Every structure is written in structure tokens, then in C-alpha cells.
């Protein structure tokens, strides 16, 4: 039964986001091809205290997990709020995008996105201060992600020094 309706085959939850890894070695088209076939998800907005076990429990709901790589602060080597989840099949990863993305883990709304595949080194935050870039610029106070953003913290310290 080949007949299908284009308008009914919407599956927007498994679409790629606009994010492309700037550190990816290769052409944009190569990266996009990998994303399209990927079994690996990037998971963001985790608490720094979220464990591999918790990630495993949640993401197992869409299929068997091949491996989890917890993202680490490059300097401190502690969890810095993201991870990669790799499934054995694409279908399982798609179901995670459809049903686990945008729900809560450790009381936080987490976000999943396709990843081109784990390579050694990609488990580290790329921010100047060692964590994720997004935590450099963040202005709000998030106790589960080190409090204020790093730049905001610097400003605060300076302000503290100036007022007397």
C-alpha cells in the first residue's frame, strides 16, 4: 500500500533542530547526513547532580541503551549538565525524541537533539570556564547548574570589590 498523504506524515518531533556542531570536522552536508542516520542523542538542561543511573532509567523507556556518556566540566571533570545517550537502533532514538524530549528528569525539563556521534573529547564542556557555553552567558540563578552563569558570577565578584 504505497499510497500515502504527505500532509499526514508529519513527524516533527524527530526533525533536526537548527543546531550544528561548530567543532565538527567535515562538511555541513556530512554532518547533516550523520544526524539523519544517528542513533545518538544529545541531552541538555540536566542538573549537575543528575546521575548516569537516572538517565539510564528514563531513556530506557524508549529502548535498550548502548551507552551513556555524561558530559564533564573540562577543568573540574565533574558533571556539567549534559550527556549523550546512544541507542542500538534509530527507531528507539526517534521514540526518545517523540516521547522523552520535553519531559522532566530530576524535576527539570530536559531537551534532546540529534547528535552526529560521540568522539573522544566531545564529553567536555566547551566554555572558557570549563562547563557548557550556555552556562557562561546565563543570567538567571540556577542552583542545579552552579548558580549564576559564569560571566555573571565574574561581574558579581567585581561589583563586590568595587562597592565599599
Amino acid at each position, binding site marked *: *500500500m504505497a*499510497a500515502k498523504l504527505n500532509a*499526514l*506524515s508529519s513527524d516533527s518531533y*524527530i526533525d533536526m533542530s537548527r543546531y550544528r556542531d561548530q567543532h565538527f570536522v567535515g562538511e555541513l552536508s556530512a554532518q547533516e547526513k550523520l544526524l539523519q542516520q544517528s542513533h545518538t542523542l544529545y541531552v541538555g538542561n540536566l542538573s549537575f547532580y543528575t546521575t548516569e543511573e*537516572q538517565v539510564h532509567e*528514563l531513556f530506557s523507556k524508549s529502548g535498550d541503551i548502548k*551507552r551513556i556518556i555524561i558530559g564533564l566540566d573540562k577543568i573540574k571533570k565533574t558533571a556539567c549538565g549534559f550527556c549523550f545517550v546512544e541507542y542500538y537502533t534509530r527507531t528507539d532514538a526517534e521514540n526518545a525524541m517523540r*516521547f522523552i524530549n520535553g519531559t522532566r528528569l530530576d524535576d527539570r525539563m530536559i531537551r534532546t537533539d540529534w547528535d552526529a556521534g560521540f568522539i573522544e573529547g566531545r564529553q567536555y564542556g566547551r566554555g572558557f570556564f570549563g562547563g557548557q557555553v550556555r552556562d557562561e552567558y546565563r543570567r538567571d540563578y540556577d542552583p542545579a547548574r552552579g548558580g549564576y552563569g559564569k560571566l555573571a558570577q565574574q561581574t558579581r565578584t567585581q561589583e563586590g570589590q568595587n562597592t565599599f
Partner: protein
Amino acid sequence: MPRRRRHSDEYDGGRGHKRRRTSEPIEIEDRLESLIIRVGEKSTSSLESNLEGLAGVLEADLPNYKNKILRILCCVARLLPEKLTVYTTLVGLLNARNYNFGGEFVEAMIRQLKETLKNNLYQEAVYLVRFLSDLVNCHVIAAPSMVAMFENFISVTQEEDVPQVRSDWFVYVVLSCLPWVGKELHEKKDVEMERLLSQIDGYLKRRVKTHVPMLQVWTAEKPHPQEEYLDCLWAQVQKLKKDRWQERHILRPYIAFDSVLCEALQHNLPPFTPPGHMPHANYPMPQVVFRIFDYTDAPEGPVMPGSHSVERFVIEENLHCIIKTHWRERKTCAAQLLSYPGKNNIPLNYHIVEVIFGELFRLPAPPHIDVLYTTLLIELCKLQPGSLPQVLAQATEMLYMRLDSMNTTCVDRLINWFSHHLSNFQFRWSWDDWSDCLAGDPEKPKPKFVKEVLEKCMRLSYHQRIVDLVPPTFSGLIPAPPIFIYKYTEENSSLPGYAMSITIGNAIKNRASNEEILTILKDVPNPNQEDDDDEGETFNPLKVDVFLQTLLHLAAKSFSHSFSALGKFHEILKNLTESDEGKLHVLKVVYEVWRNHPQMMAVLVDKLIRTQIVDCATVANWLFSQDLAHEFTRLFVWEVLHSTVRKMDKHVQKIQEELERAKDRLEKQQHRRRNSGNEEDMEKASEDEEDGDRSSEEDEEGGGAKSRSRAKRSSEEEEGLEEQIDRLQEKVEAAQSQQKNLFLVIFQRFIMLLTEHLVRCETSSLDFRTPWYKNCTERLQQVFLTHHVIIQQYMGTLENLLFTAELDPHILNVYQQFCALQL
């Protein structure tokens, strides 16, 4: 911003050079599709005027786009059954304006019906037949010809030697059309319809219903009987008949157009002979209707239609169809469910919650992945925060109250759903309401349920969170802190392996090689050593114990640490597990150290199987062993068992696929060789060849030497492939043999356990119907149901070796119920 389309065959890496040239016909086709699909959705104009307008547009487009319009309409008939009457009205209007088009549409539908039946798409076939039957209401199809089709369907019940599920399906199709067209058909052809109904009655009376208990969510008849689906539908149709076929729920836009439609000429359906039974036919499984609510549960607002009202059937059908259409897009799905037409006259939230739980608890398996239902319910709560959460809480409460008679598999799913749901709402729940579970036998379903829920909640958070969460009275149900239990601590320095554990631990920390560690392990004394065993070949459990306990202790920090440890010392572990005893002992040690962390146990066992340190049958034996007898009713045991069976299944499938691919390659190769005289074919074949290296190599050679060396190489390739196929064939057979053995082990152990229990109870004059017995029997059922596709292959062996007539009838009954499903 270009429209995004998810078509992998068109995807071009975002560059656009392969995208179809945007040409007029494609745009118009998309426009037509969009117009047709969107009709009936929220609009400023009435549905009737939208349909009128659309009919005009399509009529004007018929000269140029007739085939496209036919195709689109046939698709919506098949894929949007929840909007059935909207589209039958549209077809009715088109038929009134263009009789030939109406005729062509009916023909196309019949072709499509034949295709769906040929391809085992029975659910879609139901929707097509229902569409055709509603076309009678729209004056497109003549009533007598529809009755004739129904008569042909019902004649299948007279066939002999066919599976009951086949005739079931044909009866189901006819009955499920009657809410839509029963009235019209009775007005036109009452004698024939009466005859049809009495034939159906006779068939339903002689149907075998051994399978029903296996599919019921609850074993109790109260408060709502869990009816077999055909029985329920028959009761609903009979009630409809008693009400003189007055049906008030279905939205019927064609009524507004009656004056136009009744002027139209009708078509006769061509005589339709149901296709005969084919051996590979995959008829739908029987079902039990899930009912949790009745009108007393929705005290305010519109009344819930009764369980035998046809309205109930139609509402549930439509809600199921909406989920089926939109399951991939949870926000759209929730919105579509909540905007169900006719929602003002029914307690829609109750219907939605009931339908969703009905799917989640369906046996053998839900129609969609379990986690979909959790997320869908969360979306629904977001869209209706003032009303839906209350209905959901009410349902949860009712499900809790009826746990004692709930099927164990369904309890599993309830545990998983509830804990995951709570984790999205800060685990807020009125636990005190359930304090009745604290009294009495902790092995009863309610306390077990709460215990398992708390364990799952802990996995999604952490131990202290759970302690803080529940009232102090519930502390007995809180899971143990998931900590490693190490045997070789200082307090236990008198243990035989203590000194060795320190040595091994240091060796590992100092990055000793595998050979060095194996050498150290040689010195571990063997408590089982036989006197005449000079070679030291008797299995040494202490060796395994010391090494593995120490290793896992060092790696206890996280899953990744433990996986890394297993990987690093794979060689040693393989060495220690050469024998079956060794494999079993590894699992024993894993249990000893991690028995408070079932999640860790499960992932370790998974890793041990995947790295071939233990095999599936050993895991099955371990789960049924005396060591785990007191854990036998815990959820993690069954999660590990089913995960193990699935791994075995995937392993067999993988090799089978490899074999198929090799066979395909051989076929292509042989085809190529037969055409080796034809230079052109060779050229073309090298382009088709997946192995790019080979073709470029061939291009470099010159002249006649080319075809000669090609021929030689291709026959060499063929030989190689044939060898490969032989090897793969052997591998497949070996894997299947392993798989069969796994099921034999599992079923054998079940039979042993159940028989022991029954004998023990009989000799002590105790009632054998204990919570443990119910749990064990339902776990056996669960194995059959969950893996029915594979088990079908081994039925002969199972019947000859295990499920023989000598078996206790209580155990044999489970097997017979499974056979009665005629899967």
C-alpha cells in the same frame, strides 16, 4: 523559509540539488491534499458550507486531476476513519454532481479493499468497509448491494477448517458498520438483515472463548465485566436494534444535504467474494474491552453512555483512531482528542482516560510504545489543567483499589506509568490515602505495587528523596539504599578469600596485566577440589568470587565504571566462565554484591550477555534458582528475563538478515554470470555493485582480458558467497537451537515450580490459590503472550516435551488458553 518535508528519498543534505523541480502539478496536488485533509477542522464557516465549497472546487478540478482526487479520497477513507462521515458526505456531493466519478470512486475503493486484505491490513480494511457502508447513507451505494456484501462476509462463518479469528474478523466488520448504516439497511432490506443477524447470533453462540481469561485486565467480574470484544459489540448492536436503530451520536453532515443527495443516482457494489484463507494470513487477535468508568463515575455534566450502548462503541472507536493517526505528534494528538466533535454531550475526559488506559493495558501488547501514553496524558493535563488531572487521579485511585484482581502484566505497566508520571509532577501524591496497603500480608498486590512504584521512583530520583516523600508509616515499603555489599571487608578478614582479595585489588589498582592476574588467581584454594583432581580442573567458585567481588567493588561508582571494568578484564572473565557452573556463579556473585540495586544488576547482566561472558539460558536458570526464590515476585526479575529473551530474538534475527543479504548477493552474482557474454550488462552490473573498489579495478584492465578475468573473478566470488551462505545457515540453525533451548529452560522451570506448589498445597490441604500462585501463573502467561511470534515456531516441541496431557490441568490450562488465541 521552505516547507520542511520528511521524505528520506528526497533528502539531499539541505543543498537542494536533488529536490524535485517545483512544478505546477505537484503544488496543486499538495493543495488538493491540504484542502481535503483540512475540511472539518476548526473554521469560521460551518462544516456544511465548507463541504459545499470543497465539492465545488473538486468538481471543477475533475477534468484535470481526477486520478489525484481519487487517490487522495481513497487515502483519507483508509487513514482518517475518525472523519468518516465528513468524507462520505463529500463523496456523496461529488457523486450527485458527477455520476461517473462516483462510480470510479467505488471501483477504486473495492480495489483498495482487495489490496488491504491481501496485505494483512485488517484494521484498514475495516475502515474501508465502514466507509462504503456509510456511502449508502449518502446515496452513493445502493443498499441491497451493501447487504449482499455483508451476506458474503457472513458466509465465511460457514467455512470449515479455518482459524476462528478469520470468521471473527468478517463478523466484526459487519457488526461494526451497523451503528452507521443499520437504520438504512433495515429500512430497505429488513428481511435479509434479520437473517444476517440471526446467522451472526448462531455463530457467536458456537464460538470458542477459551482465550478470554488470558486477555482480561481484571479477573473479577465486578464492578464492570471485562467482555470479549465480539460479545460486547453484539450486545451493543442488539440494544441498537431494540431502539429501532436510532443512533444519535454520530455526526452526519449528509443529513443537511439530503435534498441534494437523494436526487443522485446510486451505484451497485460489484459482487465481492471474500478472499480465501491463506496460511500466512495474519488476522487480528481477539481483544477484551477495557472498562473502568460508568455513568456513576462522572457525577456532573453529561452522562456517560452505557457499556452496551452503541454510542460507547463509536466514541471509543473514534478516539482509538485519533491516537492511531496522530501518535507521532503528541501535542496534536492531545489537541485532536480534546476537540472530538460531539464532546459537549459526553464526559469526554473520562472517555479519553479510559481509552488511553485501555490501550496501555491491552494484552498481549499495547498498540503503541508504552511511554507514549505517559507523555500523552501529560500533554492532556497541560491542555486541560482544570479538569483532566482530577479524572486521571480518580482513575489511578480506582486502578489501585482493584489491584487484587489485576493481571500481573498490567500491574507492571501501571507501576511504570505511575512512577514515570509522578516524576514529572515532583512525586506529589496523597500516599496516606493508600495506607490500607500497610496492613496484612506484604505479598499481596497492593503493598507490592506501592513498593515497586517507590523503587521505580527512586531510580528516577534518589533514595533520600523517597524517604522524604512518603509518610513515616510507609517506611517499610521504601526500597533499600542501592549500595554495594562487599564481602571482603576488614571485619570479615577470616574469610578464605580475604587475603587474596587484597592482593587482587592491589594488582588491579597497579594496572597488572591479565596474565599476571590470572597467575595470582591460580593460587586461590578450591573448596570444591576433588582429591584426584591434580590439574585443578574442577570449577573453583572461590576464584570467581574473589576476583569478581573485588573488581565490581572497585568499579561500583557508576554503570560506566562497571562496564569499563568488565571490558578491561574480559579475558579473565571468559577464562573463569568456561563452564556452565562458572557462568552461573558469576551471576550469583553479581546478585550477592548488588542485590540492593536491581537496576545495576539488570544492566550488568545485559552487559555480561552481550559480551558473551554468560549466555541466555544461564540467566534463565539463575532467575529460577533457589538463590532468587524470595525475589521471584519482584518486577526486576521479569524485566531481566524478558530483556534476555528479546536479546536472543534480536541475535537470531540479525544472523537471519545476514543470511538473506548473502543470498541476495549470490542471486545477483549468478544473474550477472549468466549474462557474462553481454558487455553492456557487465558495465551496468559494475555500477550496481555495492563494492566500489571492484568496479574501479575492473575499469583499469584492458580489452578481452577484462571479460575473461571478470568471469573468473565472478565464479570465485560465487564460491566464496556459497561458502559464506553455508556458514551463515549453520549459524542460524545454531542460534535457533539456542533460542529453542532457552524457551525450554524457561517453561521447564515454570512447570517445576508450579507443580511443586500444587503438590505441596494438596498434601497439606491448603488452598493453592495464593498471591504467589496467581503471580507465577500470570508470569507464565506473560512469557507466552509477550513472545508469541517466536514461540509459535516451537509449538510442536513444547507440546511433545513439556505441555503434555500428563501435566497438572491447572498448568496445562495456561498452554491451552494460549493455543486458543490462534495467533
